[in-house]
């Protein structure tokens, strides 16, 4: 199921881990259906390590850069 507004040109990343997140953030991401293995399409990154817009399961979500990095396993 490909997102309509996420053209194939956007980079797609995979969630590696969620254990290093604080409980509240992990819980909220869980209730949005995000878990290790979820494919995130990175639509936009804001400068100065500002928020990152991702799309997953037909929904568009803004998260903070630090959380985004943590999801990727801190790379």
């Amino acid at each position: 199921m490909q997102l309509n507004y996420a053209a194939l040109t956007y980079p797609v990343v995979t969630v590696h881990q969620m254990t290093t997140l604080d409980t509240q953030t992990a819980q909220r991401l869980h209730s949005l259906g995000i878990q290790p293995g979820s494919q995130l399409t990175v639509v936009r990154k804001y400068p100065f390590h500002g928020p990152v817009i991702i799309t997953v399961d037909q929904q568009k979500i803004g998260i903070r850069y630090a959380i985004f990095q943590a999801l990727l396993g801190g790379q």
Partner: protein
Amino acid sequence: MPTVALLGNPNTGKTTLFNELTDTYAYVENWDGVTVEKKLGRIKHSEIVVVDLPGIYSLNPLTKDEAVAVNYLLNDVPDLILNVTNASQLKRNLLLSLEVLEFGQPVVLALNMIDDLTRSGIRYDLDVLADRLGCQVRATNARKKTGLAQLKTELLAEQRQPAAPLVLPYPRPVSDAVQTAVTALVADFELTPQFARWLAIQYMNKNQTVRRHVADCGLTPLTENQVSYDRQHFDDQIFNTRLTFIERTITEATQYLNTSHDANLTAKLDRWITHPILGLPVFVGIFYLMFKLSFDWVGTPLSNALDALLSGPVSTTAANLLTSIGTLPFLKSLIVNGIIAGVGGVLTFMPQIFVLFACISVLEDSGYMARAALVTDRIMQVIGLNGKAFIPLIIGFGCNVTGIFSARTIEQPKERLVTTLISPFMSCSARLPIYSLFVTAFFPHNQAVIVLSLYFLGIIIALVMAKLYQWLFRIKESSVFIVELPKYHLPRLDIIAMGTWDKGKGFVKKAGTIIFAGTVLIWLLSNLGPTGIVTNINQSFAAMVGQVMLPVFKPMGITAWQPISALLTGVLAKEVISSSMIVMFHLAGQTSLIATFGGLFTPLSAYCILVFILIYAPCFATLAAIKSETGSLKWAAYSLVSNTLIAYVIAVGIYQLGALFI
């Protein structure tokens, strides 16, 4: 009376659906946290009551909003739960649905915004969904009013199959533990097996509100095993089971359509609106446009016309009428110079306020507010808040009280407290009448710019204070900031009209109550003195109070007692300041007041008094909101004192500095 509880994720069109189903309306906004309290409505032509609960992501509450919904389920048992979902985001919506289905009351699942799903080339087999989930499923589009008749029939159905709670195949350790707990709870605490089961699963899933409830009730079968549950990570096992179940169900129900035609308006708009660099200028531009509309293009001309009508024909006619029926001069003066001039003077600002409210409603309904939170997040991070705090502040431009209530979507209690405390610095619409009065008198050519400068000064003070609080309260950098960006909607005229009226009716009502009372009070104070009725206002009570305070206000350029007495009445409601001034200067409406001002203020001192009015003590309604949201009178008292002090220091500072140059 049968009760239907309306439950669902944010951004599912829940409130629109509520409005379509019920006679009375609630408030519609495309931003989570709009439904700040549960709202009641009655289904048209029936006895059924619908409870509109705040939009929630899960029954385990992170925000105050979500706690409202969970507490409702813990304390009331609705006859039916209408679970509204966004059809295009069914996977994550069902995570909440499963929790609701486990609760065991009959559930009707509405797949709302079904058009968006069809457009993306997908269709769900409703029978498969209904079979797997064990509840009725209906497809709707509340915004276009499709599928509503069927949904209503479903809700009104007299005969309903007895509901069986959904039983998910949890792994052995979890299901065994649930079974043990349920047996004990039913035997020793007389809970129904159905409720006990739901409670046990929620408890194991670390639902904080449920855990508190269970602890309060002393339900030992659960509390004694808490450590064991958590050690085995029952919450993760529960989550994984649910997600697997949902993915399987959706796969089974999905049917692909051949046609897929997506206009993709959202993506096109977002290319500009959430642009990394242009996002902020777009944000500023939108607000500039909003102020131009309210103060230059639409609002002000209408206000002027209304003023001409009220201070001209209406006032004269009333005066003549009262003279002809032989009214006492004292009473005639009260009505004409007090009530008509004072209350009318405030009412003339209605057009400006309504235009501003309409603009805010458009932004809310279109889905822009979530984008505003996103583009401002990086800046808000600097002061220890997140972009979500920006929305309450923007709503605060309309009214600080609603702003403070909408801070409930913020997850961390400390951040919520800071947002509540800085909200009163947002220049609410009630302060507009007095700005307009001074701006027309002293800055006729730069009205929008001067008013905008006040708004920005308010924002700057709010940001500085937030930074200070961040340091005082030791708020850590990391905070939950996850914001959903809903699809854009073309704003619907009736929703905008409803939202505008909902926000604005408070103003009209205030004109009839507190502003009216304040005006009469100040008229009495300025016409009565220690010796009874006074002919010279300088001997009145109002003058005495003002005179005593005058030395304190001299350093910021105030040389007459009248503005000071007016400022004191502003704590009742900010609109009262202008009506008080009109009454105390004994004039018939704003036009003549503007002329009198010329001799009393310089442009500099006029600006200083506006700055003071912007910042000083919040009105009673706001103080009450601060008290109820922080749960303590102390914070309300603190706001009253600290804001007044800050206002004084800044206003005196500007005057003294300005006096050096001008």
